[in-house]
């Protein structure tokens, strides 16, 4: 049990990454009902943009500062998310195609992103340096890599910002209104197209941030997207798709079950890989609403 505090730090950091991916899903799913499975690839895109800016890989002998990587990830992913919405989702919604059509089209987008990343960056994992170096940080018994504490801090900042956006701003209320009832929201003058496009842009930015934050721990790899997409979705289902806090709770719960289970349960480590899938199935079947009940339309 001596390593428990460190395990808690590590599980919290992983959980925060899952939570960010879950939040990216949620930002898109709430107003549009579209489950965007390409989210994982968008996180991978963020990771590779980070590598390209921070290491001399893309431009030899040029290593950019971390704030530039952050800005590049947010700007490029925001544009990409917006572009994907305009090109693939908007025409389908306008045509009145069923909700499955945009979801399937986004699976095509997923493959386009992944294979483009593979062609641009190759198949080998690429490390990126942590902004605060490789030194260890200890807060009392809780010790871990500086990057883990950065992930935790950044995630909480993002969640507070998103929570304030939804609770305190007109735009946030507009998002919430669209999520509750698209037609009524349109009737009271909310611009549905703009909300949908912004939802995709915001989702892509959050996903890209998750990718950028996790790369110093895991490296950027072309196969990183799909597992992230599954883990993020599992976190979303555990927490419930209705509330922002649910994504955070679901991500943390998933990571703690994974890591504490792998550490303390007397079963082969390979089988612990199945934990997220078991959790996903259990929650989908037994508690499809997640742990936190969604806000009722009043």
């Amino acid at each position, binding site marked *: 049990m001596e390593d428990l505090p460190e395990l808690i730090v590590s599980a919290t950091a992983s959980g925060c990454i899952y939570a960010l991916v879950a939040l990216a899903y949620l930002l898109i799913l709430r107003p549009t009902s579209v489950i965007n499975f390409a989210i994982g690839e968008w996180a991978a895109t963020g990771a590779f943009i980070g590598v390209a800016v921070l290491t001399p890989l893309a431009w030899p002998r040029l290593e950019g500062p971390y704030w530039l990587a952050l800005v590049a990830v947010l700007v490029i992913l925001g544009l990409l998310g917006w572009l994907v919405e305009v090109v693939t989702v908007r025409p389908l919604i306008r045509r009145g195609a069923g909700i499955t059509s945009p*979801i399937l089209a986004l699976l095509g987008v997923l493959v386009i992103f992944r*294979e483009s990343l593979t*062609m641009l960056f190759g198949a080998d994992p690429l490390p990126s340096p942590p902004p605060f170096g490789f030194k260890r940080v200890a807060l009392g018994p809780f010790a871990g890599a500086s990057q883990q504490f950065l992930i935790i801090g950044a995630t909480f900042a993002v969640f507070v910002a998103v929570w304030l956006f939804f609770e305190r701003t007109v735009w946030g209320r507009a998002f919430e209104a669209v999520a509750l009832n698209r037609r009524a929201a349109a009737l009271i003058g909310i611009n549905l197209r703009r909300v949908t496009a912004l939802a995709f842009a915001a989702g892509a930015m959050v996903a890209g941030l998750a990718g950028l934050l996790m790369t110093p721990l895991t490296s950027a790899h072309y196969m990183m997207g799909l597992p992230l997409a*599954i883990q993020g979705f599992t976190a979303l289902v555990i927490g419930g798709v209705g509330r922002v806090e649910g994504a955070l709770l679901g991500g943390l719960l998933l990571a703690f079950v994974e890591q504490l289970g792998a550490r303390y349960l007397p079963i082969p480590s390979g089988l612990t890989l*199945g934990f997220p899938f078991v959790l996903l199935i259990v929650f989908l079947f037994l508690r499809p609403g997640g742990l936190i009940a969604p806000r009722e339309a009043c």
Partner: protein
Amino acid sequence: MPGASRVLAWLAAIVAASALAFWLGGYATDVYRKMLIWIALALSYNFLFGIAGQVAFSHFAFAGVGAYAVVILAHKIGLPFGIAFIGALALCALLAYIVALPATRLEGFYLALATLAFSQLVLVVIDEGGSLTGGTGGIANYRLPPVLGFAIRGPWYTVLLVLLVALTLWTLVRLDHSAFGRACRAIRDNAVAAAAMGVDVRRVKVLAFTLTSTLAGLAGIAYAYVDNVINPSVFGLENIFLLLFMIIIGGSGSHLGAIIGAIVVYLAPFLLEPIVGHGFLVVFGVLVVLTILFQPAGLAGLLTWRAARQAT
């Protein structure tokens, strides 16, 4: 009612596809056999996804269960092949039924994610199965025993695969034209309206899932003796994406579309890889997006106007 000419057309197609097996060389035979497996899988997946409207990601998992079950039962445990074959098929059907009972209650893409989780679990179990499943290395060094006294080798195994495709197609076409097929399409288009017209939605959904997944298991059993090697990677997520793309590009809901889609998507890499390398997957992604946006009836819809009418 199928007339004599239709029976003749079926026979002619089977004979032609079988005759090809005796003419092809070693490498071409391998390509041809795998294409036939893909067509069989695409046909049953088209019924599940295109006709019954269930976006499930478990099709390859059931193919894997079929393949592993028959090899383990026949060659690890040593049961007679007939019993191993029936056992493997029964296991697929039972497992599919157990999965279908809760899974078909899920709406839309939630079904896809639940079945995706199930497929990943199947892979985890195969990877961790130790000597029984051979772990990540899989199982090799077995051969198809004589079936009913016939030792099926070489081109005759390819003929068997042609018959598998014909049997799959025949079963699904018959189902499609029955009340069951109409109920499936009705549920796909509007489950509430279908229920209001007296369709037992749950039962039809569970049946469609169980039946098509069992057909996937059958294709998996046939696959086990194509290379006489099975390993977990074949049954992973990559291939379910390809299968889905085959149906979308070929024309969702159309049997002809499933066949065309399977042939095009399976053969395209052989032509494209020398030109664009691994980039052919990007081409598929673009094709899928374009198909959904501009040609929802797929290639089959382009080919014949009638096929397009049936698919929509």
